[in-house]
C-alpha cells in the first residue's frame, strides 16, 4: 500500500457511475419531487408540503399505514424468535440431520416470492385448496376464507355476532403467515453462524455452576448472539416497512382495504402518473425506516449499557 494507484479509478469508474445514475441521483431527485406536482411530462409545479397534507386527509393512507405496521409487528419478532429456537435445536451436538433441516428451511428464501405466493394462494383457495379441505376433513364445518375473509376474531351469527380487533382480517393474517414461513430459514442460518462463534468456555463455566438448561439459554446463549439479533431486527423491520412482492403475490396485485400496504399504494400512484404524490409516500416510508432504525439502535444501546 505504498504507491498511489491511478488504476483504482479505472476499476471504480463504471460501478460508481451505475450507483450514481440509478440509485444516488434518483434518490436525491425523488426526495425533491415530493414537493412538486408532476405527471412525468411538462414542467413540475412546486406545491410545497401539499402532497403531505393530501396524504393526511387521504382515506386510503390510514389503512395502508396500519396494514404496513401490522405486517411489521406480525412478521419480524415471530420470524426472529422462531429462527433462534430452531437454530438452538439444530446446532446442538445431539441433533441428527442438521444439513437436511437447514436445506429445507432455506429453500423458500431462494425461490421467487411471486411463485411462492401463487402456490400458497392455491393451497388456501376456498374452492378446493389444500388447507380448507384439510380443515373440512378434520370436521371444521366452515373454514374461514383465508384470502378474502373478514375479521379473524368474529364469533356467533346474526344478532349475537361479536367482533374483536376488527382491523385484523384473514387476508393480512395469511400474508403474515406466509412471510414468516418464508423468512424463518434465513434467520436460522444466520443464527447458526452466530452460535458457532460462541465461546465454549462460557458453557463449561455454566455447567460447573450447575445452571439449568433454560438459564443457560436465557443468560448465555441469547446474550451471545445479541449482535445477530440486532442485525436481523433492524434489516427485518426495514424490509417489512418496504414490503411489496409478497402482498402483490398473495393478492394478484388487486387493491383491497385489508391488504393495501404503503408500497402498493406508491406503485398505484406511480401508475396513475401522480409522481409527486408517489414520491411523498416514498418519503414517508423512508422516514418510517429511519425512525424505526434509530429507535432500535437507541434501545440496544441502553440495553448494552
Amino acid at each position, binding site marked *: 500500500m505504498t504507491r498511489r494507484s491511478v488504476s483504482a479509478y479505472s476499476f471504480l469508474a463504471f460501478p460508481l457511475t451505475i450507483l450514481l445514475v440509478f*440509485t444516488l441521483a434518483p434518490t436525491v431527485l425523488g426526495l425533491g419531487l415530493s414537493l412538486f406536482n408532476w405527471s412525468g411530462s411538462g414542467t413540475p409545479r412546486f406545491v410545497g408540503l401539499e402532497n403531505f397534507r393530501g396524504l393526511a386527509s387521504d382515506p386510503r393512507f390510514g389503512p395502508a399505514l396500519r396494514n404496513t405496521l401490522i405486517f411489521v409487528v406480525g412478521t419480524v419478532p415471530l420470524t426472529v424468535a422462531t429462527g433462534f429456537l430452531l437454530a438452538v435445536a439444530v446446532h446442538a451436538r445431539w441433533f441428527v440431520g442438521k444439513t437436511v433441516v437447514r436445506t429445507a428451511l432455506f429453500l423458500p428464501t431462494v425461490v421467487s416470492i411471486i411463485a411462492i405466493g401463487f402456490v400458497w394462494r392455491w393451497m388456501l383457495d376456498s374452492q378446493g385448496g389444500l388447507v380448507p379441505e384439510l380443515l373440512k376433513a378434520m370436521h371444521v364445518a366452515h373454514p374461514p376464507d383465508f384470502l378474502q375473509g373478514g375479521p379473524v376474531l368474529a364469533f356467533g351469527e346474526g344478532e349475537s355476532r361479536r367482533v374483536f380487533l376488527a382491523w385484523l382480517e384473514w387476508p393480512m393474517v395469511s400474508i403474515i403467515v406466509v412471510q414468516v414461513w418464508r423468512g424463518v430459514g434465513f434467520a436460522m442460518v444466520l443464527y447458526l453462524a452466530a452460535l458457532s462463534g460462541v465461546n465454549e468456555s462460557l458453557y463449561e463455566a455454566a455447567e460447573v455452576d450447575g445452571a439449568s438448561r433454560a438459564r443457560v439459554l436465557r443468560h448465555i446463549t441469547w446474550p451471545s448472539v445479541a449482535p445477530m439479533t440486532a442485525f436481523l431486527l433492524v434489516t427485518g423491520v426495514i424490509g417489512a416497512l418496504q414490503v411489496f412482492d409478497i402482498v402483490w403475490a398473495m393478492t394478484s396485485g388487486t387493491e383491497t382495504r385489508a391488504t393495501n400496504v404503503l408500497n402498493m399504494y406508491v406503485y398505484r400512484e406511480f401508475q396513475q402518473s401522480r409522481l409527486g404524490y408517489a414520491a411523498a409516500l416514498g418519503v414517508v416510508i423512508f422516514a418510517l425506516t429511519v425512525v424505526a432504525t434509530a429507535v432500535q439502535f437507541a434501545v440496544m444501546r441502553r440495553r448494552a449499557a
Partner: protein
Amino acid sequence: MTSRRAPNPIARTVAHAAAYGVALTMLLPFLWMVVTSLKTDQETVGASLALLPRGAPWEWRWQNYIAAVKEVSLGEFYLNSVIAAGVTTLLAGAHNALAGFAFAKLRFAGKRSLFAGVLATMMLPVQVSFIFAYIIAGRLGFVDNMQALVVPFLASGFGIYYMRQAISSVPDSLLEAGRLDGMTDFELFWTIVRPTVWPAIAALSIFTFVASWNAFFWPLIVIDSRQMKTMPLAVAELASGLLVQSWPVRMAAATILTLPLVVVFVLFQRAFVRGVALTGIKE
C-alpha cells in the same frame, strides 16, 4: 455447542419433531405444486386431498407442462430470465469484485468519501429512487428491453461492500510480492486476489443470480411488452387467472419457474449458506 450435556430423550424427541415438522412445512407447498401440476382439472375441483394424481405415473397429466409452455409461451419468458440473470451475474460479479479490490487494497484520493457513498446506496429505499431511476432509464433508452433488466444492476452497494470485506482478508505481503515482480494492479487482482477470494465471488454470484431471477418490482415498472417479460412477471400474469383458469396448468408453470433455482440451490447449498452466514457476521 448450545449445551455439552445431552438432554433427556423426551426433550430430544420434541426438538427433533419440531425442527422436522417445520422443515416438512417448507417442502409441502413445493410438493403440492408438483402434485397439482400432474392432475386433471376435475381432480382439483372439490375435495382434492389425494396426495398423488390418479392412475400410474405414465397416466398422469404430463401434458400440462406442454400446455404451460405453449399457452403461456413460457419459453420466451424463460429465455429472457436466463439472459438477464446470466449477463447481470457475470458482469456485476466482475465490476463489484474490481471495485471491492480498489477499496480494500489500493490507495487513492477520495477513497473514504467514495466508500461512504457506496455504503449509503445500500440504505436508500427503492420507493424513493425508482421514479427517477425509471425516468433516467427511459432517457437512456433502457426501457422495455434487455438493457433495462441488466444495466441498473451491473454494480451494487452490497456487492462492492461484500467483495471489499472478502478482499481485505488477503494478506498484503502477497500483493507486495506481486508488486516487486512488476505486476500491474489488474494483474495483481487477476493472478492473486481472484483465486484467493474465489468462494466469496461464488457466493456473491449466487446472490446476484437469485436476486436477478426473482426480481419483481423493477421489471414490473420497466417492462411493458409481453415478449420482454421475465418469469416472475409471467407467473404474476398467470396467477391473475386471466390467461389460463386451469390450476394444474398454472401449477405446471410455477414448477417450471421455480425448478432452476431449486436445482441451483441444492447444488450450491454449502457455498450459499456459508455466503449468507458471512453477510450477517461482517455487518
